[in-house]
Structure formats: structure tokens, C-alpha cells
């Protein structure tokens, strides 16, 4: 019962985050919303696993938490450098020696 209440709350928060991801005027708004959606997914996985008596879902949640972090940082790095490698390497590859 209480798990159902918590799941409903998190689902409502998730839909609000989706609204922000669709509306967000800047790319950073969308990224923030994407991060929040990822967190909501982790919490949902844990809660749903507990509600249905299969808490093994938590392992998927751990994986998803780590992936979420890496994804956000990768997108931020892409914004800054326009590439995921070092800017230095990009210069070296492009320069005709």
C-alpha cells in the first residue's frame, strides 16, 4: 500500500520532469530533466521491486545510477568541447604536419 503511494508520487514527478524536458528553453534544462528522469527510474525500480516482492531489481538500479552519471557528464563534455576526446587530439589529427 505505502509502496503504491510512493510509486504514484514518483510517477507524477517523472511526468513533470518529462514536461520540463520537452519545454526546457535551453539544452541545460533538458539535461537537468533527463538527469531527474534517470533518478526517478532508479527509485521506481527499487520501489516496484519491493512492492512485487522481487527486490533483485535493485541491482539494475545500481547499474542505472552509474550509467546516468556517466551519461550526464559525457553530454556536458560534448557541449564544451564538441567532441568526447581531448581537444588536443582533435587538433593533432586534423593538422597536416
Amino acid at each position, binding site marked *: 500500500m505505502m509502496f503504491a503511494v*510512493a510509486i504514484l508520487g514518483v510517477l507524477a*514527478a517523472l511526468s513533470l*520532469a518529462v514536461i520540463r524536458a520537452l519545454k526546457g528553453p535551453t539544452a541545460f534544462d533538458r539535461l*537537468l530533466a533527463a538527469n531527474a528522469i534517470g*533518478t526517478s527510474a532508479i*527509485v521506481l525500480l527499487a520501489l516496484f521491486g519491493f512492492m512485487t516482492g522481487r527486490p533483485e531489481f535493485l541491482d539494475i538500479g545500481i547499474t542505472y545510477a*552509474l550509467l546516468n552519471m556517466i551519461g550526464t557528464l559525457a553530454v*556536458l563534455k560534448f557541449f*564544451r568541447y564538441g567532441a568526447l576526446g581531448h581537444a588536443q587530439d582533435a587538433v593533432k589529427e586534423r593538422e597536416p604536419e
Partner: protein
Amino acid sequence: MIALLVDILSGAALTAGAAFYLIGAIGMTRMPDVFTRMHAVSVSETMGVGLMALGMILQAGPSLLAIKIAFVVLVLWATGAVATHALSRAALHDGVKPLLAGPDGRLVATDCVDLFPELGVRLAQPLSSETPEERGTPLPEDGAVIAEPAPGYGPAGNTGANPDAEPDPTREGR
């Protein structure tokens, strides 16, 4: 008796956590600009997730499951802070102007470089903590960089701390 108490406690923690989570999400939808939205999301990522995890830990009892939940929450707390920091730094570097109270008390998109000259110097430096010397040879001056860095804080030529560094007025804000 004890079981009933634990049930009540975990139910209260779960409900309160869900409420905090929802409040943070409402803030993310209704706040006026990126930085205030980040501030709202941190509510749901700390209190919301933490309280819900407390409720689940109480339900799980002393077991491996409780340790796993605690691990997930610790990871979320750590990475949430790092991601928020990186996001706000990237937004500032990109020229997003935070809404600040103007002279008449209304919110105005303010270039915070005007308010904090120190911040202007830091924004003029590249995001990486390494200096070009640490990375190896410095980039060529007329930089054949694939990702053309925005003018004003390119990786080359501009790395020396220049106290007079001003943001390029042609820099577009998004």
C-alpha cells in the same frame, strides 16, 4: 509490536519521501531559470530519495538488501552533487545569464561577470584544470580546432590569468 512500529515508520518515511520528491519536481517545472531549477531538483535528489530509501531499508531489515539500497543512495547523493556542479558550470560558460533581483526588486537576467569580476577571470580560462603546459605542447595560436571554442575563452592564448578579461559581447546566450 515491533513489526507494526517498523511498518508505521517505514510507511511514514516512504510517504514523506514521495512528497519531497514531488515537491522537487514541481519546483523543476515552475522555477524561472536553469539555476533555480537545479536548486529545486536537489530537494528531490537528497531528501526525497533519502527518505524513500530509509523506508525501504526499514522494510528490508538487516540484510544484504539494505546495504544495496544504502549504496544506491550514496551513489545518487555523490553523483547528483557532481552533476549539478558540472551542469551549472557548463551553463555559466555557455553564457546563460542567471535571473537575479534587479534594482526595483524584479527578476532580471544578469550577466554575473559584471557583479563578480573574479568570476569573469575564471570563465575566461578553459574548463579543464590542466594548463596547456601540463597537457603537452600548447595549442597553435590560430587554432585549427574542430570544435571552435567560443570566443573569449579559447584554449590557446587566453590561458594566462587576465584580470581585465571581459566576456566577448558577441557571445550568444542561449
